[in-house]
């Protein structure tokens, strides 16, 4: 069972590496943020699996923290995008 779960960790980490490629190739900021979100989720899954394989219960707490941080990263991105859009909107109406 340990071997199988370790292989699953390796597979999910390989998927995370592919996610990094999609950050590199993504056409826009939104797509990069989505790839970061996927890496967050994959990191949670890998940590949960590792915590079970190595019987380190603290890894589950780290996964919980990562879940919170990934969410706040995306919310911060959306807040930044909204404020810059609002700034663009007022600028263009004043220009007209």
């Amino acid at each position: 069972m340990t071997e199988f779960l370790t292989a699953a960790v390796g597979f999910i980490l390989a998927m995370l590496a592919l996610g990094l490629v999609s950050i590199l190739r993504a056409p826009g900021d939104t797509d990069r943020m989505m790839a970061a979100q996927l890496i967050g989720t994959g990191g949670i899954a890998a940590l949960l699996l590792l915590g079970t394989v190595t019987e380190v219960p603290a890894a589950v707490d780290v996964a919980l923290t990562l879940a919170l941080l990934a969410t706040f990263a995306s919310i911060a991105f959306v807040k930044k995008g909204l404020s810059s859009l609002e700034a663009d909107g007022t600028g263009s109406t004043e220009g007209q």
Partner: protein
Amino acid sequence: MSLARDIITIVAVSAGAFFFLAGTVGLLRFPDTLTRLHALTKADNLGLGLVVLGLLPQAGSLRDGLKLVSIWVLGLLAGATVSQLIARTARQGEAAK
């Protein structure tokens, strides 16, 4: 009993890993932002959910199992909220262009 647990773990974790593969490939291959978001949420919700489901039989105690499930629930709530917010940003970005 132990064999049944191991089989559940192997099946569920394999399915979860498959959804992570599908999510990553979708993120790389799908043509526009909203379809990529669709691929991403599958990996978020189902991939993580199936991995957690597979780890439940290996959990040492009821408390550990509940903790795993609560992480998945947090992931679900966060994923649903964030994908709505990102989709709105993407649409406004398209409208602004």
